[in-house]
């Protein structure tokens, strides 16, 4: 939720405000830069901090750094010497740290001594299934939320209360519990979907549902409330008085307003999806980054764990940058600003 600037704050420079969330976020030092440069600067800062945090975790871990880097991999004098050379462990601290940042800048994520492969290589081969899973889950969540919100906004109170109860439950069930229930019903009892694996396209259905439902719950609530608020606005009255049907009013005017607060949540969704993917992949026996992460954590394969941390920061920065652009597209009021 960090990168989410509220529309009010961004639309407020008519009265130069006491540092609003936007200014505070980017910091006084960056205020004189243009919005794009500021965005890029703040993104780079987050990436640097993530890389440094991963490095800090490595150095803070109790025990000898060489032991930690080997993890449960083969421990031979040759490999030890290679690690010391690669990470510069015989050199001063600052040189080690800068060397690490330098390697990252060159796209070198290090080497997994447990799997005897480059970390970048491992991630590249495993990223596909995870991307498919998270995108499918996001699509499921968004579609379900839209259906619920459009179906219940401004309707009978009983309908809205039912939707609201469903939303409450869906944010309270952990994704793996949904997954287990879906597996029991649809795979073991009805036999409609495969139990595990990722070979078959139908194997994606249940994991995507399990991962997408919590998102649908939160998003559905936000959308419905946004729609209801928009339909009470003066512009809704104007549109109705021009003879617009309720459906056209929602589609052409109200939905756009309801989407703004929903877009704010995209950064948070990304986190839920990435974190949830680890558990869902374990439950459904799907290959992917989640499996890689679990193997690395149980095997104490630090280079892989660090790379996953950095990768999730990269995804986050990319998503929140896109988010900023999306704001401007959805809300024309923001385009004139800055």
């Amino acid at each position, binding site marked *: *939720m*960090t990168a989410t600037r509220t529309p009010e704050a961004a639309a407020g420079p008519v009265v130069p405000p006491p540092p609003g969330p936007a200014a*505070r*976020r980017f*910091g*006084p030092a960056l205020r004189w830069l243009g919005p794009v440069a500021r965005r890029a600067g703040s993104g780079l*800062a*987050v990436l640097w*901090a*993530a890389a440094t*945090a*991963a490095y800090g*975790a490595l150095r*803070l871990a*109790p025990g000898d750094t060489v032991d930690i880097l080997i993890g449960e991999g083969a421990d031979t004098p040759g490999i030890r010497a290679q690690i010391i050379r690669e990470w510069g462990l015989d050199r001063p601290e600052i040189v080690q740290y800068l060397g690490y940042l330098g390697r990252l800048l060159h796209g070198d994520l290090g080497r997994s001594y447990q799997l005897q492969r480059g970390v970048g290589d491992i991630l590249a081969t495993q990223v596909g299934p995870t991307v498919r899973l998270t995108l499918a889950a996001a699509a499921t969540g968004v579609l379900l939320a839209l259906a619920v919100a459009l179906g219940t906004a401004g309707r009978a109170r009983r309908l809205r*209360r039912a939707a*609201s109860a469903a*939303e*409450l*439950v869906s*944010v*309270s*069930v*952990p994704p*793996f*519990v949904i997954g*287990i*229930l879906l*597996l*029991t019903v649809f795979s*073991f009892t009805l036999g409609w979907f495969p139990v595990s694996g990722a070979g078959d396209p139908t194997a994606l259905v249940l994991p995507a549902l399990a991962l997408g439902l919590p998102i649908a*719950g*939160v998003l559905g*609530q936000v959308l419905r*409330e946004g729609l209801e608020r928009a339909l009470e606005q003066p512009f809704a009255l104007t549109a109705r008085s021009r003879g617009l049907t309720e459906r056209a009013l929602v589609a052409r005017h109200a939905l756009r307003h309801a989407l703004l607060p929903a877009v704010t*949540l995209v950064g*948070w969704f*990304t*986190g*839920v999806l*990435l*974190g*949830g993917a*680890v*558990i869902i992949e*374990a*439950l459904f026996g799907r290959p992917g980054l989640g499996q890689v*992460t*679990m193997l*690395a*954590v*149980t095997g*104490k394969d630090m280079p892989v*764990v660090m790379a*996953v*941390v950095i990768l*999730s*920061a990269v995804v*986050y*920065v990319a998503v929140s940058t896109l988010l900023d652009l999306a704001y401007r597209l959805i809300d024309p009021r923001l385009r004139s600003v800055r």
Partner: protein
Amino acid sequence: MTTAAVAAAVTRRPYRPRPGAVLAGLFLTLLAVAVVAPGLVTGVDPLAADPLRALAPPGPEHWLGTDHLGRDVLARIVYGARHSLSIGVLATGLAVTAGVLLGLAAGLSHRWVDEALARSFDVLSTFPELLLALLVIAITGPGTGNVILAIGIAQIPNYARVIRAQTFVVRRAGYVEQAVTSGLPRAAITARHVLPNVLGPIPVLATIGLGQGVIAASGLSFLGMGPQPPAAEWGAMLSEARNYLRVAWWVALFPGMAITLTVVCLTVIGRRLQRRFEGRTP
């Protein structure tokens, strides 16, 4: 921010009858009893295995059936409340304490210190909660204490951000200015005037955060990072049940329901508290 926190933050007074909150309170009280004295809720030993009655369906003898070792599922859920809830409570306590201290420090410090702290909250919340917890566990290894530490650290920014924002408001308040004018030392002003007034949103946030902590704890246990067997933790029970889904749905359904009901009740109470405190400014 966590699922329910987001959901609650955007809630604009949906009508919900009070009986819901009462039921939720009753269920949580029952859970609290189960945590403190599980023997009062069930007389069955959660570790007593009876291989002859393995995977028995729910019936008069075992209300919720038995698991693959013939252990009573109801007893394991009751005793499991201790693991699952205490992880959530301790992790939330850790996050609240650290979050309040850091948020207060940020809000009261020089602009540069504040910038640095605020930025570090941002970076901390950049990582998905579960990945951050796994990073901590990769260093510390699995186990109950490490799961508490992992979840606690991941939730710090939720509280620190709010406290920082509250501090900005409170420190400009008239009563604080007056305390400064009357020459009270800084520490006394912070402890006596600022701290009590920035804590307002904490009960609501912590109640909802506790629910999310329980979800995270059960998730990590499900992955095998939490309390080690034969401890009856809800997530760990689900993880074992996974192998018997084809023949015994009850082994998975009831622990899953226990987690869900707990989180639903915590969220309901949190939202009620929120409505109660809504509109109160420091």
